[in-house]
């Protein structure tokens, strides 16, 4: 077999570089004096490039009480900067001080409400009116501020210049900002991104808090899969921040500008930022512009690390969700972090169980026993290269009509037991490794995919070549490793089960 041969070669030479010729990426890397790292791949197929900035902070670093900070801050980054999006930044700032002080009074008054209701009921009406009046003042300050705002100018500039794939995402470990542009707009990208990363401006703050609340309603509360997932994670993790799938509105709706700016100053520091540029650019161009636009960001002290580790689970946990949807069962097992020797084994197990029609769970549950319409494997939080902290290995199953979730669970546990007791045959393992090989090739088909992989690998492992080191580790996984890891982690004591129980329409919950 061709791939086995190349695998042997890699092991013998012991190199961390590409396992096959076609995988060698001509990556150029440099780090600015302030610690910000850049990765560049020149690819001149089409006159376009993708720019991807990864910041090593996500919701995992939020403190209880300020849940939602990372996500709301990411949203505010689309409001522009002290340069973009304004006609008079000083006038705006003056109004923000007033807004913030009105908000502080609203916040304080709302805290008083429960005591006034309890002890001075006759004053309640006047108190609520006082809050409503303050809210009206807040609205009118926003209205007043709009005269200085060039609404959505940040977006407008990219839009006008043909920006595509323009977005940002907030994860647990990382927050990422990305866009693709025609290649002669490289300097525009540097100017825009460095500008907002140096001088963010939290304009239109209070309406945006509401937008983020609507995002939660849309993405979590009114979506049965997300809702069930939220319960699953909330029960599976009792200590680690991975327990909170999405911010709580009660906290998000009380975040302030200073909460966000403190977060920004603490974590958006150059040594936690990696930028990858892939496309029709030259290394020299990127180097010069990186120095010019990002070189003057001050290095700031490293923040306190995240110390929390999830304690060992010592017994199955179960949770039910009554919801207006058909049944589903989601199962989570605690797994390892990216730097554990067991992590590559999980990546192989993930494919054995869940990739393709011949994967064990799909074959058993959908094709042969016909218990489910679909079954999926998901690793959480789910970076391609492993996660910064110990996450979970999840299985999601959707029973067919007339099949109970108990039947589905039993069939899943049978498969997992098989994995822990019988060695995987070599043909099946070869199949998985062939797929890994193919995926490594396909993952570079698009500029953005390549930029994302490079920046993430660099920010996770602090060396983008981890991309290939991980591949070598995946190729080296043995049948014995699989049996050992399945037997250690995919067991009842380490399991959390969330079940969606259909809520009949019109029935009392």
């Amino acid at each position, binding site marked *: 077999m061709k791939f086995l041969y190349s695998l042997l070669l890699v092991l013998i030479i012991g190199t961390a570089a590409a396992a096959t010729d076609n995988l060698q990426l001509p990556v150029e890397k440099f780090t600015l004096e302030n610690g910000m790292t850049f990765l560049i791949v020149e690819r001149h197929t*089409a006159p376009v490039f993708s720019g991807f900035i990864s910041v090593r902070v996500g919701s995992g670093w939020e403190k209880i009480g300020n849940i939602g900070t990372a996500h709301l801050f990411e949203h505010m980054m689309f409001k522009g900067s002290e340069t*973009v999006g304004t006609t008079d930044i000083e006038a705006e700032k003056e109004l923000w001080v007033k807004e913030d002080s009105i908000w502080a009074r609203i916040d304080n008054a709302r805290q008083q409400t429960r005591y006034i209701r309890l002890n001075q009921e006759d004053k309640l009406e006047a108190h609520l009116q006082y809050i409503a009046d303050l809210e009206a003042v807040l609205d009118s300050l926003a209205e007043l501020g709009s005269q200085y705002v060039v609404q959505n100018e940040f977006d407008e500039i990219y839009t006008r210049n*043909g920006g595509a794939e323009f977005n940002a995402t907030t994860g647990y470990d990382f927050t990422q900002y990305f866009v693709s542009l025609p290649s002669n707009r490289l300097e525009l990208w540097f*100017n825009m991104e460095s500008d907002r990363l140096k001088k963010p401006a939290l304009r239109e703050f209070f309406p945006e808090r509401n937008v983020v609340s609507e995002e939660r*309603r849309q993405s979590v509360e009114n979506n049965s899969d997300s809702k069930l997932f939220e319960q699953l994670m909330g029960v599976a993790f009792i200590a680690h921040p991975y327990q909170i799938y999405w911010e709580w509105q009660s906290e998000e709706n009380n975040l302030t500008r200073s909460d966000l700016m403190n977060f920004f100053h603490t974590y958006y520091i150059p040594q936690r930022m990696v930028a990858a540029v892939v496309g029709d650019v030259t290394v020299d161009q990127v180097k010069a512009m990186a120095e010019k636009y990002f070189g003057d960001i001050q290095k700031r002290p490293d923040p306190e690390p995240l110390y929390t580790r999830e304690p060992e689970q010592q017994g199955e946990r179960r949770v039910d969700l009554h919801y207006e949807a058909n049944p589903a069962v989601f199962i989570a097992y605690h797994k390892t972090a990216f730097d554990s020797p067991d992590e590559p084994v999980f990546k192989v197990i993930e494919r054995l169980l869940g990739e393709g*029609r011949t994967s064990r769970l799909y074959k058993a549950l959908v094709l042969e026993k016909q218990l489910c319409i679909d079954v999926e494997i998901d690793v959480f939080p789910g970076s391609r290269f492993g996660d910064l902290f110990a996450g979970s290995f999840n299985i999601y199953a959707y029973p067919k009509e007339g099949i109970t979730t108990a039947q589905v669970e039993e069939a899943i546990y049978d498969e997992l037991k098989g994995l822990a007791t019988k060695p995987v045959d070599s043909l099946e393992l070869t199949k998985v490794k*062939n797929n890994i090989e*193919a995926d490594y090739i396909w993952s570079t088909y698009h500029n953005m995919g390549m930029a994302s992989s490079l920046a993430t690998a660099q920010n996770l492992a602090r060396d983008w070549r981890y991309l290939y080191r991980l591949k070598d580790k995946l190729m080296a996984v043995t049948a014995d490793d699989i049996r050992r890891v399945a037997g250690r982690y995919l067991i009842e004591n380490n399991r959390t089960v969330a079940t969606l129980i259909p809520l009949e329409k019109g029935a009392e919950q």
Partner: protein
Amino acid sequence: MKKSILTLFVLLLAVATAVPADHPRNMKFEPLAFDPPEPARFETSSGLVVYFLEDHQLPVLTFRAFFHGSSAYDPPGKAGLISLTAGLLRRGGAGDRSPEQIDQDLDFVGASIGSNASYDDITADMNCLVKDADFCFGILSDILMRPKFDSAKLELDKSNRKDYIRRQNDDAAELSRRVYYQTVYTGHPYSIYPTLASTDNITRDDIIAAHKRFYHPDNCIMAIAGDMTLDEVKGYINKYFASWPKSGRQIEPIAPADPQYTPGVYYAEKDVNQAIIRMGHLSLDDRNPDRFAFDIMNFALGGGGFVSRMTGRVRTSAGLAYSVGTYQYTRPLMGTFFGYCYTSAGQMARATQMMIDIIAEVKTDGITAEEMELARESIINSYIFDYDTPSEIVNARAEVEFLGFPPDHLRRVLEAYQQVTLDDCTFVAKKYLDPDNMVIVITGNKALFDKPPGLFGPVVDVPMEIK
């Protein structure tokens, strides 16, 4: 594709003086020329047309076949037939290969083959490493030419499809989408969705007949890109598809259907804490010469994201929604224009009214010259991203011929966007926008709404029973 086709022009306006020279707003760029490579085209004696783009960057191959035909051809009472046929091609065994053998063979080499029918076409796709090309073309040709439609796999597919139908109201967003299309396309094939009964009605003989009807070389255009030479591709096509018999006939077009929807409010009850609003009407199809002006007008109205009026006002200023905007779905048989919004249930009427007002305002006053230029620049400058990989370039080129457009269609499209004037935008807004006669689908729990749905027209309660 002509050499000049994707030359991109920058139409930056000189702007204001009070901002610093290095403000991103003031950065100017030379026009960017892009001449995407021209794929090779050849035709076999059986009428099969093949486009191929040679590209040696990665050792991979992409393949797409387009077939005339679609779910719009489902016979009465058998909705779902054409799409079930497409799915079962891949899953039901082919030639001497059992369904399980095909699964194993493809999974083993990390390749994928899939076939799909939408309301507008039938496609088959294959992705593989180039070293497995011969092996995969062998499987693909069996699947397209000699499918077995295994009875047990047919029963499993039907049973699973019925389970998905039973779940069709689980997700509020999906419910809103389906009710909108079913209502606005009343009387048109686009409104027909598979049901439990229509799925039960489909027999193996129906599937065999559907395959016979559509899957022919002279009803097919293939698009291939990757790490091969033209001679190699011709060799594979000859080796595997030479015996595919020509049908000698064309697929008859779908008869035009007149719009029959009744404007008003369609309330789909679901106990969620948001209202999902979808409002619109029929609009332009893909042959309509007004579509370029309409696209630009719609970009400014609600299709252009943050910079559009609807997103700017409803999301950015009022904070009422995360997802809000408009969409022009330019379909081959009949297009539709609609606005959408996901807002807290207690803001339903407020958001609905804002959306109606913005559509009405654009109908009356049109858009501004600045809005038009921004839309035009964005559409033209981002056009390149539809053609920045080999598979996108060759698929787009094949699709142009498949849809019957002239070979220089993509260049003409760019020119058409260049030529749109403000008068054109005003004209299409007046002619096509019809805020007084919309289908307004509201999904949610009316007990939580700020005002009753009846405020926006006569209310029809959408039956939620699953048949």
